[in-house]
């Protein structure tokens, strides 16, 4: 019934290239696209449940202390109000990605401004919202002079949980002996995930079983998080997330709406829907930490790195075990035997810091690549050439080989497509009217993650197939690529493959996060299809090499038989199981690429506009050219956001977030995004996954903001080391006008 593969050795079989259907890699349109644009696709809050009540969260207006009194009477008499709930099963913080257990729950113990403290439930959403605003809550606030709200006030710095400290050789000495060196400190501001669809949940309770429609990325873990929070057995929790309107990390773990709706449904015995307001998405879920990063680069006369240091300071709430792994790519990207890598964490009272869009590399790479540009200038070596000279043979600390790494090809292909001039790098040379024009580049790197995954595939008696897993599609194209993989393996067009996702009753996948979805779930689908092919071979009495499946026909021994004919009324269901294995430790695995951009900086105002941007990326096998490119483009758009505008603005006096909607927290709009050129550098990586594919989703955001930083310098001669690079930071440094 099932087939399992553990990736202890590179999977050299390269099954997909051997198949005949020819759908893999093709730019197939997203299968669920028409449903989404026509409004047929149903998101969590849009499901209906007869008799559903509506809950609205009430969040704290202090940063530290406790709830003294919730005056329920202040709202219980209002029309439609059913309950004010401040149950200890509610969650005060979202679960971290992959936690698989309840997050911090004491909602009456306040640790940050915006923490959920209660949910008000009423017949209608409007009644609940009004009552939630009117609910009187008395707090015992801690003495604010004792409460650490800002990173600069953190009183101690511990090693970031889950991060790896490297101290190798003698970096200070390497710095003093270096022919060229850079020692620079960069800062980045906090980022919000800013998904289009706010977090939402509709919970139903039948006395035994809890069913929740929610907007979640990783059902496999979310089941346990919710069950643990509610004190239920995991078997009695059923989650449904067929469509997710973006998550960007903020929906990896369960969010407060999910727990609040569940508690309310269990208490009231009727379905309850809770949707976060846009402000609550900003204030009550997850932030990416701000960072301070010191980068030290020590190069010899040829520009080869002998010493390398990347040390970061990040923050989170007390007790949280997530530290932004800022130096993740720094561990393997560049050489330098004298090495220091470190992430230190301070504890502050702002909302939970967690995974937001490529945690680690998104901010780490932009600082590192800005520093590399400073080294290029210092040494007089072209930025591309400098990077080409610094591609290590083996992992500089772990001494293992790299799996696939077409970094040099990406650098060259990107430079070529962009028309990059590596020699003439003198800044502030080109002016068009009011605008300084400049170019910049950066390397892209993001670790490759593979996760345990299961998927079931059924070859139906009519010759179509059904793929089923609790994997989610958060707008990335999962439905489509899983259909393509099954189609390729079974000789079907993707339109003949029904893909069912986002239902926790289905085979357990890893969910969407860390760019592991396609390689992991896709491999499980491939493995299930292998098992189906084996059974077909048994029926035909042949070996797999001799079986061709194409266009719904089985061909072997010069005989062509339609699948329904062959199946003769049967269907074949198989479960595919993938387990990561020793290749994880035997190889350094990552996706790589390069960004090139041209920017214009207004000589008067310091406004920066991106004129064009190219990216060349090596992501292993490209499963679908269109969805892969779209992922890269999306990443490049976030690079623009991170470089030029995204900034969670906290009030330093009380720790609340000042800009908490999409009008005031700026993400790029159409006009900020010029033509983006994406080049896919094809490769196969047998160590990364049986599909020979690597992660793609997050790669496009890892480094591009550094390219923009470098281009700003090249344009106007101002080196900013503080992201985002807004006009207020540039204005005092611009040349006189």
């Amino acid at each position, binding site marked *: 019934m099932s087939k399992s593969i553990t990736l202890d050795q590179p999977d050299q079989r390269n099954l997909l290239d051997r198949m005949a259907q020819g759908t893999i890699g093709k730019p197939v349109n997203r299968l669920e696209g028409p449903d989404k644009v026509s409004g047929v696709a149903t998101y969590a809050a849009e499901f209906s449940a007869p008799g559903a009540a509506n809950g609205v969260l009430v969040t704290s207006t202090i940063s530290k202390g406790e709830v003294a009194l919730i005056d329920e009477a202040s709202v219980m008499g209002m029309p439609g109000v059913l309950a004010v709930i401040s149950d200890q099963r509610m969650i005060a913080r979202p679960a971290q990605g992959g936690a698989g257990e309840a997050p911090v729950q004491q909602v009456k113990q306040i640790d940050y401004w915006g923490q959920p403290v209660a949910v008000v439930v009423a017949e209608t959403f409007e009644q609940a919202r009004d009552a939630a605003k009117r609910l009187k809550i008395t707090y015992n606030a801690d003495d604010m002079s004792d409460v650490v709200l800002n990173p600069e006030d953190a009183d101690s710095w511990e090693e970031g949980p889950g991060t790896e400290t490297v101290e190798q050789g003698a970096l200070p000495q390497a710095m003093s002996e270096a022919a060229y060196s850079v020692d620079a400190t960069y800062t980045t501001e906090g980022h919000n995930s800013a998904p289009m669809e706010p977090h939402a949940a509709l919970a139903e309770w039948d006395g035994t079983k809890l069913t929740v429609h929610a907007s979640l990325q990783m059902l496999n873990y979310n089941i346990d998080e919710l069950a643990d929070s509610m004190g239920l057995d995991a078997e009695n929790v059923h989650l449904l997330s067929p469509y997710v309107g973006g998550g960007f990390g903020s929906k990896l773990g369960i969010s407060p709406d999910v727990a609040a709706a569940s508690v309310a449904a269990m208490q009231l015995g009727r379905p309850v829907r809770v949707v976060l307001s846009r402000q609550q998405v900003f204030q009550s879920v997850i932030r990416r930490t701000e960072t301070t990063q010191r980068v030290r680069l020590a190069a010899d006369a040829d520009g080869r790195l002998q010493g390398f240091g990347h040390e970061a300071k990040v923050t989170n709430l007390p007790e949280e075990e997530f530290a932004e792994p800022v130096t993740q790519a720094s561990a393997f990207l560049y050489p330098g035997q004298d090495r220091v890598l470190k992430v230190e964490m301070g504890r502050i009272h702002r909302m939970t810091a967690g995974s937001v869009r490529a945690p680690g590399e998104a901010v780490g790479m932009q600082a590192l690549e800005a520093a590399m540009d400073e080294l290029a200038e210092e040494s007089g070596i072209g930025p591309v050439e400098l990077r080409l000279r610094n591609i290590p043979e083996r992992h500089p600390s772990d001494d293992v080989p790299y799996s696939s790494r077409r970094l040099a090809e990406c650098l060259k292909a990107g430079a070529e497509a962009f028309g990059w001039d590596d020699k003439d790098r003198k800044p502030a040379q080109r002016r068009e009217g*009011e605008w300084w024009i400049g170019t910049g580049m950066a390397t892209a790197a993001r670790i490759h993650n593979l996760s345990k995954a299961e998927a079931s595939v059924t070859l139906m008696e009519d010759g179509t197939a059904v793929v089923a897993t609790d994997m989610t599609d958060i707008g990335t194209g999962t439905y489509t690529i899983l259909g393509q993989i099954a189609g390729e393996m079974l000789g079907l067009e993707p339109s003949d493959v029904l893909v069912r996702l986002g239902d926790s009753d289905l085979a357990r996948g890893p969910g969407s996060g860390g760019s592991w979805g396609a390689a992991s779930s896709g491999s499980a689908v491939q493995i299930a299809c292998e098992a189906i092919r084996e059974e077909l071979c048994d029926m035909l009495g042949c070996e797999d090499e001799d079986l061709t499946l194409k266009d719904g026909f089985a061909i072997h021994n010069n005989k062509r038989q339609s699948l329904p004919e062959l199946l003769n009324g049967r269907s074949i269901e198989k479960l595919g199981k993938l387990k990561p294995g020793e290749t994880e430790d035997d190889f350094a695995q990552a996706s790589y690429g390069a960004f090139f951009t041209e920017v214009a900086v207004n000589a008067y105002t310091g406004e920066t506009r991106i004129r064009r941007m190219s990216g060349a990326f090596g992501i292993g096998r490209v499963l679908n050219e269109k969805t892969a490119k779209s992922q890269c483009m999306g990443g490049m758009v976030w690079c623009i956001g991170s470089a030029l505008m995204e900034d969670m603005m906290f*009030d330093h006096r009380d720790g609340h977030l*000042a800009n908490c909607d999409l009008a*005031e927290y700026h993400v790029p709009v*159409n006009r900020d995004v010029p033509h983006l050129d994406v080049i896919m550098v094809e490769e196969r990586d047998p160590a990364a996954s049986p599909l020979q594919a690597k992660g793609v989703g997050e790669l496009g955001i890892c480094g591009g903001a550094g390219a923009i930083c470098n281009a700003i310098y090249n344009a106007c001669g101002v080196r900013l080391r503080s992201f985002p690079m807004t006009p*207020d930071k540039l204005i005092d440094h611009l040349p006189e006008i």
Partner: protein
Amino acid sequence: MRPFDYQRPDGLDHAALLERDGGALIAGGTNLLDLMKLQVETPDTLVDINRIGLDELEPTDDGGIRIGALVSNSVCAADPRIRADWPVLSRAILSGASGQLRNKATTGGNLCQRTRCYYFMNIDMPCNKREPGTGCSALNGRNRIHAVLGANENCIATYPGDMAVAMYALDATVEIAGPDKASRSVKIRDFHRLPGDMPQRDNVLEPGEVITGVTLPAPVGGTQLYRKVRERSSYAFALVSIAAVIRMEEGAISHASLAFGSMAHKPWHDPRIDAALTGAKPSDALFDKVADLLLENAEGYGENDFKIPLARRTVKAVLREATGAST
């Protein structure tokens, strides 16, 4: 959002308008509804004025144009007469918000849009504008977008809009109908207020008054520019903006009218600036003088200090472009 009554008069002389006490007018709703959801505004009654007419642009006897209060921002910006004769207005409107918002937003509503001060929009924060006497949270808080001109410790909020800035440069007049059918008109330059000791009042509208339209005087020609500075190139409010109407004759400036946005509690107009420019030959020294006049009493509150050099540099950019001096 609090429960409210809803009325929809079909003309200006309808009782709902005439005998109105309290309640709020709703036009496009693009600002009011957001603030109601946040409970910054909690009107008992909404009086929907979308059916009272006043949705046309008509020529006036003296060669100007009257823009009805309910003319949408999109319609106004696209009107061929506005585009030809008062292009600064078209440009200013098109630089604001988004296509969808401009389709709903109206002339009257745009003039009355409220500040984007973060603390004003958060009912859990003290704010003199929202709740007089509670204090100004922005003064020592996050004030990157706040005023550098005409502010005081009571309130450092800005009027954030664009359309009105162009109307200031064009010396428009606001027409107002009162509850007793009386009507009056106010020069737009006197319509918005500085905070003084009543920061809760954005403008001079009295309770029960309705804006019926805005008239623009006859066209003055010249070069008309609207320059809006912001880090996000669209769908963002200005950090600083300038509306400029400059006519040149024989190498000298024969007409000048400048207005400045997002720098104060109202669009900023200083007659001394127009006077200094009029009749003068363009030069960097002249432009510096304009910036000096504009900024002589400018005061930053920390994060918004940059607006002062930014305004100085933007003045230069705009005047060089408008007078044809080289950039």
